[in-house]
Structure formats: structure tokens, C-alpha cells
């Protein structure tokens, strides 16, 4: 049982997960530095899989490395770069080292990256991958070939409540839950009313009795960063008045503060929704704002007297 799954099962407090920065070089010291920054404030951390279709140190290597430095990984697996054989091998391989949390994603298209000429794979889609990964934990590969000592896996996925077709997103989340997703980290979003409708729909459909919902917020420090996400990141749209509010805050410091306040508001709103089990943090600031945010929200291991440091098991 991963620590994340235990925390979600006992649901005594909201969990805090975060995105691990991309690693390209610098050896394990680079990884350790990033792990040290996050460790006191988060329960588990996502090891990304070539985010935005840019090559980086692989999901498996970073997930395994994170464990060496006391962080519990959530290994993302995207369908863009590998076929079904390779993806199963990655999950099974990482599980040898104790990686249990797996998040199954479709993946941004190759055209979102710096090598748009690459071949896209998509041999499985994310929902199929959820079912295949769940099968590994049940003791068989997709082919049916038995795994004598199956790995303990905690399989989840991502859903985007903010992108069209909005009315269909709850059904898609349900499909993922039925395929075996036990947690859904939600895409970055700046429409609180859409999040609210989605979460309500999931609760009414009974999804939250099997599957934890974890919305995502982003720490930014400029209106430019918001505009960039709005224009360039697939599936993210930000209302113009929100960008204007941050842009019109005043000087650079005032803008950074207004950006923070916006993130804090969105976080508070997300955590106030019945059916939400925690929050996922993406930090583009790297100026201590992540710590400030969990302090202001009063959540995470730093505010849980019963908690041990993330990633250390309690037996």
C-alpha cells in the first residue's frame, strides 16, 4: 500500500501532491536538491513523462531516484511515446524499486514539443492504459501472461474538467474510474464554476466513493505566465479578466503578489468542494511560494502532527 493510497483511504486530511521539476543533467544531486525543496510540504510528487513532448530524464529513472531521497513518487506514464509493451515494462520495472503510484495520461501531442517531427505512438489511450496497469496489479500482462508476484500498484489518471465537451467530462472520469483509476488529478484550470460542476457531477454519480479527486493549481508570478498558459498550453484557457486583474496589480512585486493571491483563492475554493480529496501544486515560481501556500492553507504533512516525512513508510 502506497502512502498516498493510505492517506486517501483514511481521508483525515487533504493530501498535497506536486509536480517534480524536469531533470536533464547534473546527476543525482540535481534530483536531491529538488527533492529537498518539496519533501517537507508534500505527500507525493509526480515524476513527469516527457512533459509537453520535450525529452527529459525518464519517468522511471526520476521516480526511482525520488525514492532514494525520501519522496513518494507518482509515476506519470503517457501514451504518446511508447507502445503497450514498453509501457507495461516501465510500470513493472519501476515497481521492482517500490514505485506504486502510477498516473496514466494521454500526453500532449508531439507538435506541442521541440521535436514535432517525431512519430507519435498512442498505441493505447489513457483509459485503456489504466485498465492494463490495473491488470498488472491483478497478476497478468495485457496478453494474459501471468505475473507470479504481481506488484502493488495504486493506479490513477488525469481528467480535464475545463476543456470541451464540458458536459461529457464527468462521464469520461467515470469511465476512467471503471477502468481502475483510484485517483484523478485534475488539469490546471481557471474556471472555478466548471470545477464545481464537475466535482458535483462526480459526487452525484458515485465516482468519489472509489476514486479521489485532486484539483491542480499553479504558482506563477506574472501576467505573462498566465497569458502563455492560456495561449500555448493545450487544454488550458484562462479568462481575460483574470489575466487583467493580475496584469493591473501594479509593479512587478505587486503583480507577483496578486498572482499568488489568485492561486490561493483558487486553492481555497477547490478544497472547499465536497468530494475533493486534496490539491496538486505546480510551481513555476521557485521562490518559497509553495511553502507559503501550504502554510496559508494549513494542509499537508507540515501541518499534520501524525505525519511522517513524505515517502517514509510507517510499516
Amino acid at each position, binding site marked *: 500500500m502506497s502512502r498516498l493510497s493510505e492517506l486517501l483511504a483514511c481521508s483525515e486530511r487533504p493530501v498535497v501532491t506536486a509536480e517534480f521539476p524536469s531533470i536533464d543533467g547534473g546527476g543525482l544531486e540535481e534530483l536531491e536538491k529538488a527533492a529537498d525543496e518539496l519533501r517537507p510540504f508534500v505527500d507525493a510528487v509526480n515524476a513527469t513523462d516527457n512533459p509537453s513532448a520535450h525529452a527529459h530524464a525518464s519517468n522511471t529513472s526520476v521516480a526511482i531516484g525520488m525514492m532514494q531521497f525520501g519522496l513518494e513518487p507518482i509515476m506519470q506514464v503517457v501514451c504518446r511515446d511508447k507502445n503497450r509493451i514498453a509501457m507495461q515494462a516501465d510500470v513493472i520495472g519501476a515497481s521492482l524499486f517500490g514505485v506504486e503510484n502510477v498516473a496514466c495520461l*494521454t500526453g500532449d*501531442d508531439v507538435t*506541442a514539443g521541440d521535436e514535432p517531427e517525431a512519430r*507519435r505512438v498512442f498505441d493505447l489511450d489513457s483509459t485503456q492504459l489504466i485498465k492494463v496497469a490495473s491488470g498488472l496489479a491483478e497478476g497478468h500482462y495485457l496478453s494474459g501472461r501471468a505475473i507470479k508476484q504481481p506488484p502493488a500498484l495504486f493506479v490513477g489518471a*488525469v481528467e480535464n474538467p475545463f476543456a*470541451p465537451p464540458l458536459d461529457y467530462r464527468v462521464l469520461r472520469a467515470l*469511465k476512467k474510474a471503471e*477502468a481502475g483509476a483510484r485517483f484523478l488529478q485534475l488539469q490546471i484550470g481557471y474556471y472555478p464554476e466548471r470545477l464545481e460542476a464537475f466535482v458535483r457531477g462526480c459526487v452525484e454519480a458515485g465516482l468519489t466513493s472509489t476514486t479521489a479527486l485532486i484539483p491542480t493549481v499553479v504558482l506563477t508570478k506574472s501576467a505573462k505566465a498566465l497569458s502563455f498558459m492560456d495561449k500555448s498550453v493545450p*487544454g488550458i484557457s484562462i479568462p481575460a479578466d483574470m489575466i487583467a486583474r493580475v496584469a493591473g496589480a501594479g509593479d512587478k512585486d505587486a503583480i507577483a503578489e496578486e498572482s499568488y493571491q489568485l492561486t490561493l483563492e483558487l486553492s481555497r475554493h477547490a478544497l472547499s468542494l465536497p468530494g475533493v480529496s486534496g490539491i496538486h501544486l505546480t510551481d513555476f515560481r521557485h521562490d518559497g511560494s509553495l511553502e507559503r501556500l501550504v502554510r496559508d492553507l494549513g494542509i499537508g504533512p507540515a501541518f499534520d502532527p501524525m505525519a511522517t516525512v513524505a515517502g517514509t513508510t510507517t510499516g
Partner: protein
Amino acid sequence: MPKLLPLIEHAVKKPVWDCRMCGQCVLHSTGMTCPMTCPKTLRNGPCGGVREDGNCEVKPEMRCVWVKAEQRSHSPANPHHWEEEFNDLRPPVDNRLQGTSSWVNLVTKRDRRTPAGWQGLSREQHSAVPGASMVEVDEVASLPIGFHS
């Protein structure tokens, strides 16, 4: 005839649905919108990258295949059970069927054959299921190489 069928099927379905001859047609359950025309060939719904205007992440000028499919799945012109089947979990594509006639595969039930693990079984259990190996049609009728787009 088996060699001709894929040609005929392609000639009919290409102009209407931009058919990619995956050989395991699910059009009726996807609002008569071919999921293989999605640049990511997703068969279980839209990705998270759909643009605010409902267009495709990869091809901004194109309507998202799944936005279209979802709308069309509610069409009163279709039989009612097609709408329900929209939410079915569709299995991974069998890449061996690429270029073959889905009509033939439908009749022989070849298009419904999935790996044992997809049904939650190990292989030993799978072969114990009555009829599991009833249809073993691996000799599928293929289009000539280079025919399909």
C-alpha cells in the same frame, strides 16, 4: 471476394467518414464519427487538450473529433442503444487488422477478439472459457500495400 471487400469498404467509407481501415469499426458507438481520424487515434473519448473553442489541440483548424462524436451520439436519427454504447470502454486496437475489411471481421467476430488480459483473465483461465478459441481467423484479407492513406 475476400481481397475485393476491403477495396469496396474503403471506397464507400473513405469519402463519407474518412475511414482509416482499422478493421474494427466502432462508428455506430461513436456518433458515426471515426475515432481513428483523431490525430491521437483515441478510442475512448477526448484528450485533455481540446481547445476552448472545441477544436483540436493538434490541428487548431479542425473540430475535435470527440466533440463532434459526443454531439452526434445524441442524434435522434440513430438507434437508441448506440447512444448508450458511446460510453463503452473500447479495447486497444488490434494492429494486425489494419487494412482489413471490418465487415468481414464483424461477421467472423474477429473484431471482438481481445487479449485474455483485457478480460481480466490470465491465459490459462482464458483458454478454459467455452468458445474462447472458437474464432481463430488470423488470415485476414489485406489491402494491397500502400493502398490506404
